[in-house]
């Protein structure tokens, strides 16, 4: 029986279709990682450029205001109002920390803002609702690694093994094998393991090496663990599909029947099932227009009559036009309250989103393609929770900055150079790779369960009464 392993392996490696499939899959996988890496780098470069630009503008302004001889502030910038108009209105930049493994799955990162520029009392200069993308490209889905794994790896396995049992029956080898005392369950289980292992031996090192080359930052211990975990997900998902193919082969039907059945399973499991599940579990009807309206109103609350008047007349009269500033604590309190109201709307929306996501993830645990999709997006740090974490950190920073810059107009005392130099500095929240062990357990559990069903089905056929 040991020979059986060797024979199966040799037959597979000598087959032209095996090489064609593995080379195509490898090419597409590497290409998808390059696409993901390109998008990741672009985001990273933009955020770095933006941060450096804003930082240099701030420093240049502080330096510009410092008197050469004394190193103290130019009186022009000292008074609460003049200072406030300069310091308080300097636009700020904040960008998220681009996760190291973001190339694995673009996830929802193209739909959420990943950097912002804003002025502290005028959140209506919040420029970036999201990055600019062609909606058609977004709607069709990016060709990232998660797509390659979820859609194409099962297809390659189906291509390699859909006719594992019928092939022997039509060529007449099956009776010969059985005549030598081999059991179909053992023979086809080994053939399945060989096909699965042969693909994994090439595919997994290729993917992990490409990730290592493209993203040297993952060479740390955390990164290495993340890569091992990634390999576990890839191998587990492939094992599930190989087990499914094994099960379909156990029904003793023709090669074309097997192909049709497997393609239908694949279509439902990877293409039709996930969006349908999302719609039914998460609520299919979008509340987009209502939501837009509420968000708009909250976002632009500062433009409402009372606030705008208060802002314009109390804080922003132009001295060139001869008006006296009448900045008051009440006005500032009003602005603060509006900002909090806007943030609260955003938080409520974020909480609802997280709750919806939790429901969808729970229901999707029955669908291996969904489990893998979520696992990869979590590992890549482009999941909704990480993106909302960034948004929350950015809002907190904005509140800190506003409080610091509004202190002087409220107290009526002058700004000091130390205060400006010690202004709050944006620190993006860390995005560690999230490894959900439950996903691994779930995938391997499903793979073993389906393989077990296949085994039982084969054994039932072997029974003398059949």
């Amino acid at each position, binding site marked *: 029986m040991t020979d059986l392993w060797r024979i199966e392996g040799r037959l597979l490696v000598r087959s032209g279709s095996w090489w064609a499939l593995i080379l195509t899959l490898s090419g*597409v996988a590497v290409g998808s990682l390059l*696409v993901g890496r390109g998008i990741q780098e672009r985001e990273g470069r933009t955020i770095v450029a933006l941060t450096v630009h804003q930082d240099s*503008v701030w420093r240049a302004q502080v330096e510009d205001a410092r008197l050469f001889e004394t190193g103290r502030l130019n009186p022009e910038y000292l008074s609460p109002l003049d200072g406030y108009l*300069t310091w*308080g209105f300097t*636009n700020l930049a904040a960008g998220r920390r681009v996760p190291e493994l973001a190339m694995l799955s673009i*996830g*929802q990162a193209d*739909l*959420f803002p990943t950097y912002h*520029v804003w002025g502290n009392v005028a959140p209506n200069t919040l*420029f*970036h*609702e*999201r*990055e*600019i993308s062609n909606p*058609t*490209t977004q*709607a*069709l*889905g*990016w*060709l990232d690694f998660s797509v390659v794994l979820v859609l194409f790896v099962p*297809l390659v396995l189906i*291509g390699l093994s859909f*006719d594992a049992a019928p092939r022997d029956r039509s060529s007449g080898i099956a009776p010969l094998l059985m005549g030598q005392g081999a059991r179909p369950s053992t023979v086809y289980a080994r053939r399945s393991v060989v096909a699965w292992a042969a693909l994994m031996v090439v595919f997994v090192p290729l993917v992990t090496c490409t990730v290592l080359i493209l993203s040297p930052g993952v060479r740390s211990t955390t990164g290495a663990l993340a890569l091992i975990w990634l390999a576990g997900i890839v191998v587990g998902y492939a094992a599930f599909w190989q087990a499914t193919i094994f099960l379909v082969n156990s029904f003793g039907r023709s*090669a*074309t*029947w097997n192909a*049709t059945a497997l393609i*239908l399973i694949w*279509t439902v499991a990877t293409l*039709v099932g996930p*969006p*349908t*599940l999302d*719609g039914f579990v998460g609520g*299919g*009807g*979008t*509340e*987009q*227009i*209502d939501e*837009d*309206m509420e*968000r*708009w109103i909250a976002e632009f609350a500062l*433009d409402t009559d009372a606030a*705008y*008047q208060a802002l*314009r*007349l109390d804080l922003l009269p*132009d001295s060139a*036009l001869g008006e006296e500033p009448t900045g008051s604590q009440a006005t500032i309190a009003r602005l603060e309250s509006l900002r909090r109201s806007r943030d609260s709307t955003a938080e409520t929306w974020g909480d609802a*989103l997280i709750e919806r*996501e939790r429901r969808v*993830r729970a229901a999707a645990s029955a669908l291996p393609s969904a489990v893998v999709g979520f696992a990869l997006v979590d590992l890549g740090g482009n*999941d909704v929770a990480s993106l909302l974490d960034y948004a929350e950190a950015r809002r907190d920073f904005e509140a800190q900055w506003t409080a610091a810059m509004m202190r002087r107009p409220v107290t009526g005392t002058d700004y000091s150079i130390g205060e400006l130099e010690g202004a709050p500095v944006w620190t993006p929240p860390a995005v560690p790779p999230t490894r959900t062990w439950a996903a691994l357990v779930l995938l391997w559990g499903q793979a073993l369960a389906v393989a077990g069903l296949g085994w039982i089905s084969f054994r039932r056929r072997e029974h003398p009464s059949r």
Partner: protein
Amino acid sequence: MSGIRLLGVVARREWIEIWRGQGPRLLLGLMLGAVALSSAEGVARYHNSVAQYEAATERAREEWLGLGWLNPHDAGHRGTFAFKKPSPLSIIERGDLDYQGSSVRLETHTRNDSPGRAAAARSILARSDGAHPGSVMRLLIPLLALIITYRAFASERQSGTMRLTRASGVGWRTVWAGKALASLGAVGVGVGVAVATVAVAVLTTGVPEGARGSLRGVYALLVAVLAMYAIGWTLMGLAVSGFARTAKQAMGLGLVCWIGWAVAVPRIVHSAAYTLHPPPTAWEFWRAVETGRGDKWSIGYKGRSNFLAIYDSVQGGLLESEGVGSTDDLVVDAFGLAIEVTEEEGQQAYDQSYGAVEDVFDAQERVVRRLAPLSPVTAVRTALAAAAETDRTSHDRFLDHAEQYRRAVMSTLNLDIAYRGREGRTGESTRGMDGAYERGPDFWASVPSYEPPTPAVRDISKTLLGSLLSISMWALLGLIGSVVSARPSWDR
């Protein structure tokens, strides 16, 4: 036996063979079930969207009319909203709808982007071209056609019955025509029922009487596109079956074609288009706007805007043209005119920046169009999204229309300050800028409400005809392939 009768016999036999298999029955059931379910979901979603659209439009108008007494420029800052009206045909195809946003805030100085994305409120599971009748049909019609046709020639060759048929005097043309007729009929049953299901769903939305005529024309063209799509895949399936040595090989080749054309190529093509023509980042976009407007947003309020320079220049011009020595004697308010000038400068900057983004998207779509012959799925998606007004062109039309409205409203407000701002003033406080000049409910009511653009039926029809032509060319390839492969010279 006459040629026609022979053809009938061959077609009948093929028809029976097709429906004897479990695959076609199973797949047909799956496709029709999915179309029916997604149509029902689409109808519910459409009604929900319409209700939201009407409520939001009414609320926006009420807020505008309830501005009270206010300076017109302050009213410009308060602004209003334009909402995109859902099309009844959006039931069929979601297209880019979930990635476009459905509203835009209209305010002075700024041309806003359309913000919300329905897709952002969903999980990543929804990121695969959705589950709506359009995506179901574009994915499953080809699979149905391939499952129906893969045995047509290949299994007969494999079993040797093809030679027997020929030996009994039936010409290859008759065999081809009979098989094609039966296969097209079988696929036609599926497509016909699916299209009828969707049509019933659209009719339940209560399409307004006035819109029915144009909608009927668009739907007819859409049916023609889907029919040609089904014909193309059926003929391609027959060609694959004709070239393959065995039924298994035909099935394998067919599935590779389906996966390639229907699943992989559209994604590869769009990712390639993005890589070749990346759009500007949001940061680059806003920097360009700032530069165009002459603003320096990043360095604080004092250096923020070039408004004061414009204000001085306009005031100087007015003093000269009106021939007065003091600003108090001016008839026209400098502030209103200066705001109008900055508005126009802003419009140019926005036109340039938005235009640059559109140019990039157009370049991306040119790449997609050039590579469209690689996959008929791209062409059929373009047609469905255009008909349903869920494509980028329709969204841009809405945004442009809303922007024209914004400009007209802001111009009305600014010119009102300019030409009426100094009426009834006393003392020093005579500038529109200080908010002393106010307008009330009657004035806000005189500003017309936003009306969404009517569907550009002509443009939509043009897109549909373009797609129909592209798919017809592809179907012609299938026709040639199937005829060539059916010839006796291919018998081995």
